């Protein structure tokens, strides 16, 4: 066989292997063989996933990820946490760099077209606007034409510019956006309500308030690759088990979140089912 022929055969073999892989993905098998669950989590997003003073990644969703690892592999430590941001988490998942993402992922139709969701374990407030205490602004309509800081890649950015006519000034990360707000480069910062609420607890931010309340509540879920039924079932079972044991309510307390009716109701339903 010529060198070129060999190359062609191996290319075809590789291509069919890839094709086979994407047709019947079985992440569960891979995870068990590897004995580690690789999870994409946030590390800049209290209370869901953030770095504590010791530099460890902790948070509501990190606890959930560890619980799933415990259910699948027998130990919460058989886990590798990969920090992701809104702009790359779906790409990380699709590229196979993580098995599952628990990264403040809101459930939207557009996302549903490219990935699968786990059960919806949180109902999160959408974006609100952080502004200086003195502002008289209290509705989205009043922000028309105003410079508002935001984050590049946020799902609501198009709505902000096209529907509310806001002049968005979008940064790559939160630290830059907070800094720009303090520098008065924008008159407010539009971001996930829960995170902004937590920010207000910090001493530096006492002269700021949530001026505009969220316009929607969005269920949050873990993200899975499409057509991966065995893994999806295993992850969902683990989450529902955690709900039934009241773990999510414990984590709400642990990470200083207000107790939500949504989580309480899901816990009741899950406990009844078990």
């Amino acid at each position, binding site marked *: 066989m010529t060198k070129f022929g060999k190359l062609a055969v191996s290319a075809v073999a590789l291509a069919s292997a890839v094709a086979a892989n994407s047709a019947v993905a079985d992440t569960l098998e891979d995870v068990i063989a590897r004995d580690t669950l690789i999870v994409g989590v946030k590390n800049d997003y209290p209370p869901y996933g953030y770095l504590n003073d010791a530099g460890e990644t902790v948070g509501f969703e990190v606890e959930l990820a560890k619980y799933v690892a415990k259910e699948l592999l027998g130990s919460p430590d058989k886990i590798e946490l990969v920090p992701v941001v809104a702009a790359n988490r*779906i790409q990380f998942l699709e590229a196979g760099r993580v098995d599952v993402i628990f990264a403040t992922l809101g459930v939207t139709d557009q996302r549903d077209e490219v990935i699968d969701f786990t059960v919806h374990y949180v109902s999160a407030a959408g974006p609100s606007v952080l502004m200086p205490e003195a502002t008289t602004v209290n509705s989205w309509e009043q922000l028309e034409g105003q410079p508002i800081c935001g984050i*590049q890649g946020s799902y609501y950015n198009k709505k902000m510019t096209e529907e509310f006519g806001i002049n968005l000034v979008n*940064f790559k990360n939160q630290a830059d956006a907070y800094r720009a707000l303090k520098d008065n480069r924008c008159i407010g910062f539009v971001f996930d309500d829960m995170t902004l609420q937590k920010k207000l607890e910090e001493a530096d931010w006492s002269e700021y308030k949530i001026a505009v309340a969220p316009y929607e509540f969005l269920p949050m879920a873990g993200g899975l690759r499409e057509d991966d039924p065995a893994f999806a079932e295993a992850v969902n079972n683990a989450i529902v088990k955690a709900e039934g044991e009241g773990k999510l309510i414990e984590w709400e307390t642990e990470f200083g979140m207000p107790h939500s009716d949504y989580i309480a109701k899901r816990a009741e339903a899950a406990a009844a089912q078990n």
Partner: protein
Amino acid sequence: MFGLDYSWLADPAYQNWLVTGVINTLELAALSSSVAILIGMLGALGLSLRVFWLDALIEFFVEVFRNTPPLLQMLFAYFTLSTLGLKTTDPVTGLEVPLLSAFACACISLSLFGGALAIEAFRSGLETMPKAITEAGRSLGYSRWARFWRIEVPIASRVCLPSLTNILTNLFKTTSQASVITVPELMYYAGQIYNDTFRTLEVMILILIIYVVLVSILSYGMSRLEAYLTLPGYGKGQ
């Protein structure tokens, strides 16, 4: 074709974003390239005067702006200069706001970065001048200034055109980093579009083509200029 989905291009919001992005990229590239060329010429002129303190000053400028990443320069200009006191009072709100807008910060740092590289390019052009030519000028009675403007600059600018083309194409591509400080250029909107649509590959391919086309137009123009200005017997004049 190849399973690529470009249906998102029909959305007027995305069309708008792409057009605005291209315009901002072009503006940023045009402004910073012009200023960079100007800085390059003035710097090389300064160096040719052989004044000790001016040489030191220009060399210091070149070392600082050529040896630091333009991204760092932009972030520095955007976040640090206002803290250091470059502020103004907004007449409408009465608040203290940074003097330099994001676009100004990007433009300044790209101009200085490109300018530092251009100084070196123009200097190399001046320094390759054959001694015989300047001596011929001197024997014909040209003064130092007349030699500089009428003999050295016309020859040197032709010699350094290829490296200037390199610098300008590089500068054009570096404008994409301005998205970090919120300048809404092509990459800024590209990121938002693929985050909305998850058509990362399709958006990337389109953006790639746009950059190739724009930079090709620039380098074609530069090569035409090179051909037009060619010295008989050198390069394209052979």
